[in-house]
């Protein structure tokens, strides 16, 4: 009893216009107050001064989602999440550089 649906209309989040707090919050699966705390801690950096004026670039959604996941699943708070995210990003960047350097000095598989 499989239900097959032909579906083609999709929208990519990440490349479009900046998002207001409500849309950003929904996409990140965060509470508005948590997003505000993350802005206060400098983890997220929207344009605009007040909550109503905040505009988040769409590429910040991935960072917001990772923050939400880590806070929920590792029971981290707003104060520590910034450090964890920065370290994860730095680690990923170092891993990429290491992979490239390895490929320059090592024989092909």
């Amino acid at each position, binding site marked *: 009893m499989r239900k097959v649906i032909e579906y083609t209309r*999709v929208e990519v989040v990440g490349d479009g216009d900046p998002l207001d707090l409500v849309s950003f919050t929904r996409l990140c699966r965060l509470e508005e107050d948590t997003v505000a705390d993350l802005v206060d801690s400098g983890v997220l950096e929207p344009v605009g001064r007040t909550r109503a004026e905040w505009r988040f670039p769409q590429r910040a959604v991935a960072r917001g*989602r990772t923050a939400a996941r880590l806070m929920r699943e590792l*029971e981290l708070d707003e104060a520590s999440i910034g450090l964890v995210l920065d370290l994860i990003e730095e680690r990923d960047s170092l891993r990429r550089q290491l992979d490239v350097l390895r490929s320059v000095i090592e024989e092909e598989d």
Partner: protein
Amino acid sequence: MRYRDYYQVMGLERGATQAEIKRSYRKLARKYHPDVSKDANAEDKFKELQEAYKVLGDAEKRAAYDQLGRRPPGEEFQPPPDWGRNFEYSGQSAGGDAEFSDFFANLFGGASPFARSGASTTRPGRDHHASIEVTLEEAFSGGERALQLQRPAVSADGHVGLRTHELRVKIPPGVTQGQQIRLAGQGEPGPAGGQAGDLYLEVHLQPHRRYQVDGRDVTLTLPIAPWEAALGATVAVPTLGGPVELQIPAGARAGQKLRLRGRGLPGREPGDQFVVLKIVLPPAATERGRALYEQMKRELPFDPRADLK
């Protein structure tokens, strides 16, 4: 459905205290969290752990689970007909449990006594989230994918199982790691006639044997001969959109990075392709090859260790 031994998953004895359960969860969560772990099976292990903790970490659910008795993990299992009768239900919603096992769905999820919230008011359906594995080629040119999603559904006899739901999705060109594809109205149906939620697919790029990917930028390691590095050369370089000619400057070094602007993943701001040079020495395997090396040795005033003196 199959029995799951949540104590075994968490590495605990049956008599563990709630404090021990919490400690074990935190320790294992740090070890297996997919954002942190290098373990290839981290995602599956973490999901199992979350499911186990959702039950054992909640005193009410844990007591109900303990009443089932201990069985070998994986054994065929049916919940007792009076399941949940003697428990007071806290009526928490079962949101976010869609990826847990049949065992969980039947005992604690969707329409189990533990999720009876009596919420029949009109509200929008929840958004659903899933991930999608995309190859770099698909990310560049776009693609199409049939997705099978499992959703909890109530069968005729009142049990909750997972029903397979198939979707065809067009992947637009230019998606990158961590981006989300939104399918409007494909999330949870709105209860009592509310608006349906959306389905979000988070893009996971599969590792590529040739390219490293960082956002929309890609990096390729290009092997060149020593004379190409020394004299400069024009060589054909593969890119995601097909080969292009690349000018290697004379005196190029190993590890040097050259940029092919706009040859990465497409988008509003297209990515670049970086080319990192790797100098490959020809083997001195033939007589002629050895003779050429001998000639360089004799005629080139070259000391690679000059700096060490």
